[in-house]
Each structure stands twice: as C-alpha cells, then as structure tokens.
C-alpha cells in the first residue's frame, strides 16, 4: 500500500563508542510508527549526509556523547545543505551544554535533546514538525 511514512536517520558521528542511547531512540521512533535507519558508530559527517540523501529521510538525528558535537554537527548540516537537503529536520541528542545548544539552534538545527528526554517527546516533536513543514515528501511543482 502506498503511504506516507516518516523516515528518520539516526547517526553517531565521530569516535563515540557507546550507542545504547541512540539505539533506544531508534527503537522508540520505530514504535511510534516511523521508519528508522540506524547507521551505527564512527560515521563521518559526509557518510551521514550521503546516507540521508540515499534514504531520502525527513529527519536526521545525531547523537554525541564525547563532546565532538561542535565540530561534527555543523559539518553534517553543511553537507546536507550542499546535497540539496536543506529542507529536512536535523536534531541532536546526547551530552550537549546549553551554550552549544544555542549556537547549534542558531545555525539551523531543530531541537536538541539532553539525556533522559522521554522518547515520546522526541517522537511527538518530529511528528509535529513533519506535519507543519513536510506533509508531502515531494511538493507539487517537481
């Protein structure tokens, strides 16, 4: 049956060795009815953006626990834009200090979630965003 499903890429850029949190979020989003592509550990920003393109996801969810987010997260955003994916939602989660959250929000990130955020909150936020910004994965005129 043809139907519109929300597709989410969950990715961990950089050298994090610990992905339990990302997997918990991935499973929760699946339980919320979304199609979740999990790319695993040790992804470069380029690999993440390329995967986002191939999978035509609505959302790119980045996870970072080791503090490399200020170098890696913006690079993902930048590459997504250069690949023509500026209209997708890019969110982040993990250990993210408030000042960094402010900077990332300023350059175009969606919400950034700290540890312990209820996964339902993340799912609801994504659903709401898609409803408002991308109800049609292929807007008319293309």
């Amino acid at each position: 049956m043809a139907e519109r499903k929300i597709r989410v890429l969950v990715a961990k850029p950089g050298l994090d060795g610990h992905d339990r949190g990302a997997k918990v979020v991935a499973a929760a989003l699946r339980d919320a009815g979304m199609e979740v592509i999990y790319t695993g550990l040790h992804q470069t920003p380029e690999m993440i953006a390329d995967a986002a393109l191939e999978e035509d996801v609505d959302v790119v969810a980045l996870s970072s626990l080791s503090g490399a987010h200020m170098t890696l997260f913006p690079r993902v955003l930048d590459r997504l834009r250069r690949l023509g994916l500026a209209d997708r939602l890019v969110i982040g989660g993990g250990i993210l200090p408030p000042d960094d959250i402010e900077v990332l929000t300023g350059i175009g990130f969606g919400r950034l979630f700290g540890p312990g955020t209820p996964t339902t909150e993340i799912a609801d936020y994504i659903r709401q965003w898609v409803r408002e910004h991308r109800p049609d994965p292929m807007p008319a005129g293309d």
Partner: protein
Amino acid sequence: MAELAAEVRAGDRRALSRALTLLESDETRADALFTALAGQAGRALRVGFTGPPGAGKSTLIEKLALRYRQRGHRIGILAVDPTSPFTGGALLGDRIRMGALGGDPDVFLRSMATRGHRGGLAAVAVEAADLLAIAGFDRLLVETVGVGQSELEVAGAVHLVVVVLVPEAGDAVQSLKAGLTEIGDLIVVNKADRPGAEGFAAEVQEALALRTGVERGLDPVPVLLTDAREGRGVDELMEALEAAASGAGERAAARRAGALKARLLGLLGEGAERRAEEALAGALDEEVEAITAGRTTPRRAAGRLLARLLGG
C-alpha cells in the same frame, strides 16, 4: 514528472532517491513518473538474497558489491526489512553492515520496509529495481528479511535468487523448507569457518537432489561455501552468478508472472474488501452479533454475505 524522469535517467542521486520515495508513498504520481519513464527498463542483472536472520546476507552483499565494483560495475542495493504489524514502524538495520560501500558514487543503497504490502512487495521491489536500472546501476542486489511470504514475493522481482544459510541451522532439511528450494537458483552456506560447515553443505546438496516433480531435469542448484566476513568464496559466488545469468531468463519470467498475478490478486482483494465493507455495513454487524450469540458460524455468515454481494 518529466523533469524528474529526465534527472533519474541522467543518474542524479537526489532525483533517484525522491523517485523511490514517490514509489512508496504516492501511487498516482508514481504511475505518472513511470509513464514518463516508459520503455526505459535499463539492463541490469537483478539478484535477490534471502534466508534466515543472522545468516550474514548484508555482509555477503557488501563483499560481493566490492568485488563487482572492482570489475567496473555500478551497484544498486535494496535492503528490505519487516514493518511491525503492531506499530507500523520499522528498524532498517542492514545499512549498518555495509559501511565499506559508503561514499562511492557508483553504489546506491536504499533501505525499504515491507509496509504490509498484500502481494504487493514484489511489485514495489520490481519498480524500485527498475528505477535503479534506469539510473544506470547494472548489478542490483536485493536483500530480504528472514523466511516467509515476503521472500517468495521478492523472488518475482529478480533474475536470480540466492538462499543464504548458516551451519548452525542444524538439520539441512529444516533449512530447506518454506519454499526455499523451489525459489533458490544458488545456495550459499555462509560462516564456512564454523565447524561442520562442509558437512552441512553436503547435506544441503543431498536434500536438493531429493526434490521431485518440476525440478527434475533441471541443472542441479549449486551449493557454495563462503565466509563473508573474511571475504572468502565471494569471487566464486560472483562467477556463479554471472554464469547463471545467461540461463536465468525463462525462470525469472515465470517468477515475474507469478509475482504480477499475486500483485493483481492483492489489489483485487483490497478493492473487494473496501467495496464489501461499504455495501454490507449493517449486515456485517448483524452477522457478527449472530455469530457471537451462537446462532451461526463465520463461514456460513460469509457465504450469505458473499451471495448477497454478488447478487445471487
């Protein structure tokens, strides 16, 4: 759609990606796109990989894709995983095992969920493969989940079916049930480094030899040993696929006809169910009540409703 069609033909990755989304999410516009692409099937060898979970299909596909790339082929990969019947969501986790293919412009990897297609997975897989072929990928590898209906459906979408087994599965005969022998053009026993692998492969070969009826008279199905993690046996697999490709046409055509029929029946079923629910609304509820009260059975109720629907 004309512009999107032109972009797909030109091999534009973003266009291809969006076309695949369209295929899955919007039948009307997908039809329009395919009309715009009419007659451009592209020439690609399509190979399906099926078998129980944990057999190492993704790892095998990754290694095979790398070998094919060395030969200058352009690889399209569809990785299919099950949609949860309860939540409607899916965890598409094959990509994670094919990391070595990232960043290569001559490889395109797309994850797809089964989405509860009724007899329709094969059709979507056929059309998704068509898009990859039109975009210029000439070796298409389709990975499907576990064993069951989906795999038989996807068999209709490809020229060759590779069944991937592992020695731990135990009894060779158990491994070969559920239609795997009928649809397999090649059997691969992966994780050949495990003890008993060769013995298991021999048992599989014997079990295949016992097939009767339609299969008699056909060439024996090759059984290959691989260790995908170490890349062993992958060259032989590639050679076997290329050799089988030339003879694959007739069997594939029969499978595709079967898949299209299943697709038509599925669409018919969906349509009929919708019509029945509309036409019989009140009567349906009455019958449910009668069944609950023990006055009739589901089969008899259905017979009555069907007769009413068909006006006879």
